[in-house]
């Protein structure tokens, strides 16, 4: 009976929302003044930031301060899980996999690293960036842990090292931002602070964007690895 009530409540609320958004479902022609910012980004993005990937241009240049906030949220999540998750940790799995798995994983790990750093360093040129690359880095930790068990990474010490790396990433992001102030402009300034934007499309271009990508990647990668570390428990 309770479920029916809940279902009815959900349906009522959903229909309310639906009728409110009904007009928005088939938007009439977008008026030009409502897309002025996206038009601006499309028109001037490459020239002003040096990044071909406009998403990265917005994430790490136009609205880099928001990205700093998002990175902080991940940092907080990592701190929270390290603080609150239980301390007793045991082997992830005692089951031995077949040699194919061990060999396969060992074989794939270097390539994963290459993929991760490719995503990070080419973030301003092709789809990818710090967050994606960081997740791939974290995947390697997870894979190693799943197959070879906890004995492969020396627990507490490596965790501490990873927290230090994570902090380094976060501090690096802010220091790059402060460099903008030091060079006589404002926080997280890129082209305006005289950083060389280079030729759009080349690897070394777009000023601080690749550096910010790298720091974000380091931070996200080590952060997610810590989260996995803290949460694993034997079933």
């Amino acid at each position: 009976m309770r479920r029916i009530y809940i279902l009815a409540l959900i349906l009522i609320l959903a229909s309310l929302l639906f009728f409110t958004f009904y007009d928005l479902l088939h938007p009439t022609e977008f008026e030009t003044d409502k897309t002025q910012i996206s038009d601006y980004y499309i028109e001037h993005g490459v020239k002003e930031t040096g990044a071909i990937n406009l998403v990265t241009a917005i994430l790490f240049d136009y609205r880099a301060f928001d990205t700093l906030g998002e990175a902080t949220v991940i940092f907080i999540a990592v701190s929270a899980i390290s603080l609150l998750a239980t301390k007793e940790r045991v082997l992830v799995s005692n089951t031995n996999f077949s040699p194919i798995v061990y060999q396969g994983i060992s074989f794939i790990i270097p390539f994963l690293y290459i993929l991760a750093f490719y995503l990070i360093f080419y973030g301003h040129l092709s789809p990818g960036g710090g967050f994606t690359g960081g997740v791939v880095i974290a995947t390697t930790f997870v894979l190693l842990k799943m197959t070879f068990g906890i004995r492969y990474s020396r627990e507490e010490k490596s965790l501490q090292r990873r927290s230090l790396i994570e902090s380094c990433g976060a501090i690096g992001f802010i220091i790059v931002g402060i460099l903008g102030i030091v060079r006589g402009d404002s926080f997280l300034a890129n082209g305006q602070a005289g950083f060389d934007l280079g030729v759009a499309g080349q690897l070394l271009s777009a000023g601080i964007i690749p550096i910010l990508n790298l720091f974000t990647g380091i931070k996200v990668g080590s952060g997610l690895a810590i989260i996995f570390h803290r949460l694993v428990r034997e079933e």
Partner: protein
Amino acid sequence: MITAISLVVVPLLAGFSFLFIDKYLAKFRKLFILGTGLITLLLSINLLIQVSNHPLIYNLGNWKEGIGISLIIDPLGGILAVLIAFISFIIIAYSLSYIKNHQLKYYTLLFLLIAGMLGMVLTGDLFNLYVFFEITSIISYVLVAFNKEDISFEASFKYMIIGSISGILILLAIILIYQSTGTLNLAQLVIAARNIPIQLKKVIAVLILIGFGAKFAVVPLHTWLPDAHSTAPSPISALLSGVVIKVFLYALLRVLFILFRIEELLALDFNNLFVYSGVITLFTGHLLAYRQDKLKRLLAYSSIAQIGYILIGVGLFNAAGLEGAIYHVINHAVVKGVLFMTAGIFILKSKKKNIADLKGIAYQLPLSSFIFTISALNIVGLPPFNSFISKWLLLHAALKADFIIPASSILIGSLISLSYYLRIITLLYSKVKEELTSIKVPYQLQLAPLLLSLFYLPLALFPNFLLLLIKKAPLFLLKTINYYNILLGGEEWIGLFG
């Protein structure tokens, strides 16, 4: 100019680098913690002095307004920044002798929480506001569970569920605003929001009212607050009750007044909605506080009631009501901070949470009990104290706007609160036969509440000094065209000199 951004960056950097200080420079840890708090406080005071005459705008990355993110700081933002930095500094000083376990994580999160709150009051960008909103919220959930007891996990989980839903509603509102105006810059929204159809505006208003309302515990959405604020460690309770909920209220007011002109709000009867939900919040808070037997829970319900007072002042939508409300925000932050900190001392001493177990504790902790008594009488609103002044201002404003019932409920509410605070005070000072406990409380713990309670004196004796500053706040909050003019670098504010 640079103070504006460094006010966010300094605590953020301190939070990130605290791990290194803790690991490699452990000797300077205390100095680092206090120093960061002090620097933040000095920066915020510097900022307030700047913006009290010339509100400023800081474009991050030096992009044009609207293209990038801007910080827009008006007098209200400056006042709240100083309040946040000041209360946080006292809380940091108190935590140094209160928090014994997990210091590393505690201070990391505390610094980030300060950065998040400062970001919320300084930012001039709607989505950036949401980012800092999330930072502040998530750290609040974590710090509520800091004691790692079952009860605090439950409180934290409850807080998180309600908080996440409210976050989603706010995100939905931001999406709707951006879709219908094409800008996220708060100052530009003042003009752009005029083109939003009124039907859509109402939906957005409902979303942000519920979203932010759940965060500052307006009554039907208040259920998480007593659990969260009473199970958190005492310094965190002081911070959550004192400033965090006020910051969410600020965010609501900022967005609401930018979206709607005052005439529209009055036409939609929003003043009645605010004032009467304030009345309901006030009575619910006070009546439930009356029935509590745990000290911190009582204080938490009292916080809900004070939000009611503030809502009554805000809901009048005129300068007088807002001035009273802002003054009450400041008073409540200071007084409730002291109350929670002294309650923390009592609980540390007696190891018990019930009010009945605190019988006769005043003979062992004379100073703390004295501070508690003064603060309790203060928050009730008895005449010589500073809360009386703000409550008087609220009462006066409500009467002038012909809200008789809300005005009288301010008086009745204060009477109820007098009755339950007197119950605690008489218990504190009643004689008991044997000593309660032999647990020693470090005397440094009493320094922070003592220092904070010394500020009752200037707040009560020289209200005009502060009111002079506060009087500038409604100019930018209510007459949003002034807020828009900050963009243009205007110096002539409408209504400032007339």
